[in-house]
């Protein structure tokens, strides 16, 4: 077996990243102090949003986006759903979780069901509140629009992979008077969320959500490896800029190996 051409550099980068991730996890397990994570307003606002729904007696709407289950953003959204469902179960607040992807739907249902069980209120779980709307992008958008207007959730949490429907969700949520927390790593949708939502998780903040919300040292430790990766990225950009300025193709050739 040989590594595919043009994948050699990517493979070794992934392996080095994996090694640094494991190192940080082992250090966290040994009790080495984990650096503090900066405040993410959007994640801190989750409890505020759920509390608002509890006070107003209105539901929370959660959408994990329209990405499929292989999308890391969807999996990050599932972690947030677990947290939101647990808080909603604790405070007896209805959680409407809508889904577009048919494989993501049963996962959402299981997560919400388990959250209710974990807080000791399995009977409060309402199966009809975890909904599969449609596999079609705009049919899903229309379904969510209907829910926002009919059931008037007081909080609209949109985290995951979104495309053209992002602004429809966010604007409809704003019209319904919901406090809105969004998050995506799809760069073309971030401006829409920033413009229309109260809080927005930008790019990597979405992936850090499970570590941030659970405050588990092992998960927080893994964020350090991410920061190391960013530092390496910055160094590569600077070196690449200098080399490209003197017309040296060494780094370009290395990256394309």
């Amino acid at each position: 077996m040989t590594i595919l051409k043009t994948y050699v550099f990517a493979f070794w980068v992934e392996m080095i990243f994996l090694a640094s991730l494991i190192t940080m996890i082992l250090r966290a397990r040994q009790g080495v102090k984990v650096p503090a994570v900066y405040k993410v307003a959007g994640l801190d606002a989750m409890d505020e949003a759920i509390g608002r729904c509890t006070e107003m007696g209105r539901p929370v709407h959660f959408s994990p986006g329209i990405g499929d289950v292989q999308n890391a953003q969807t999996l990050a959204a599932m972690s947030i759903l677990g947290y939101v469902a647990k808080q909603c179960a604790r405070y007896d607040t209805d959680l409407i979780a809508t889904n577009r992807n048919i494989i993501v739907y049963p996962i959402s249902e299981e997560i919400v069901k388990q959250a209710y069980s974990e807080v000791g209120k399995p009977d409060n779980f309402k199966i009809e509140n975890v909904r599969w709307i449609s596999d079609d992008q705009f049919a899903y958008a229309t379904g969510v629009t209907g829910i926002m207007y009919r059931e008037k959730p007081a909080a609209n949490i949109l985290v995951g992979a979104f495309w053209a429907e992002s602004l429809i969700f966010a604007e409809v949520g704003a019209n319904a008077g919901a406090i809105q927390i969004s998050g995506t790593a799809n760069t073309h949708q971030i401006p829409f969320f920033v413009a229309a939502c109260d809080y927005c998780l930008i790019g990597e903040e979405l992936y850090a959500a499970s570590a941030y919300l659970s405050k588990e040292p092992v998960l927080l430790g893994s964020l350090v490896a991410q920061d190391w990766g960013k530092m390496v990225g910055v160094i590569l950009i600077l070196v690449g800029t200098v080399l490209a300025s003197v017309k040296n193709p060494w780094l370009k050739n290395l990256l394309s190996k």
Partner: protein
Amino acid sequence: MKKEVPMAICFILAVLYVVANYFTGSKFITTLKTTLDDWFLIVTAWAVLVGTVNLTQIHGRRIRAKREGYVFSAWLLACLYGMMLVSILIFRSANAIGWKFMYNQLIAPMNATVYATLVFYIGSAAYRSFRMRSLEATILLVTAVVMMLGRVPLGRMLLGGRPYLGQMADWILSVPNSAGMRGIQIGACLGGLATALRIMLGIERGHLGGTGE
């Protein structure tokens, strides 16, 4: 066991997919990956049935209780089962003229209509965002005005035929905008990779339910 077994399966399959995506030369791994991809399609097809049951339960209850707007629920179920039955019993193929008619004349225009409503949502979002409430909002407003005028003939006309606004718009897109976007993309890629590795190693279990509190 409820979490350990899925985590073990996840780890083995993740390693297999990493090997299958990066390496070449093993017929066994390629065949196994193709088989697993086929399984995924079969699981997806069955999951549609689960989703259909969920839709029927929710809207069936609404119709039985005659809740507000139950007529729309009835219409939804009629369309869902109507399309399904007609496709299975009469058209039997995605190439049938009748099926193509239903797709091209009903579903496609409805999709286009919903997509078109984005124009109004963009308008209302822009109105709320571009109000000069802070320095950031003012910068956003000025940038947006330059971008909009730089993209339409009016911008050129206002400056007596000079292309300055268009050039400024191009510069904004290709320099500060690209730099910002790429910064976010690098962070997001590393975040995605870290999430995938955390899931692979069984450290992140949020998708299995609970947050590990």
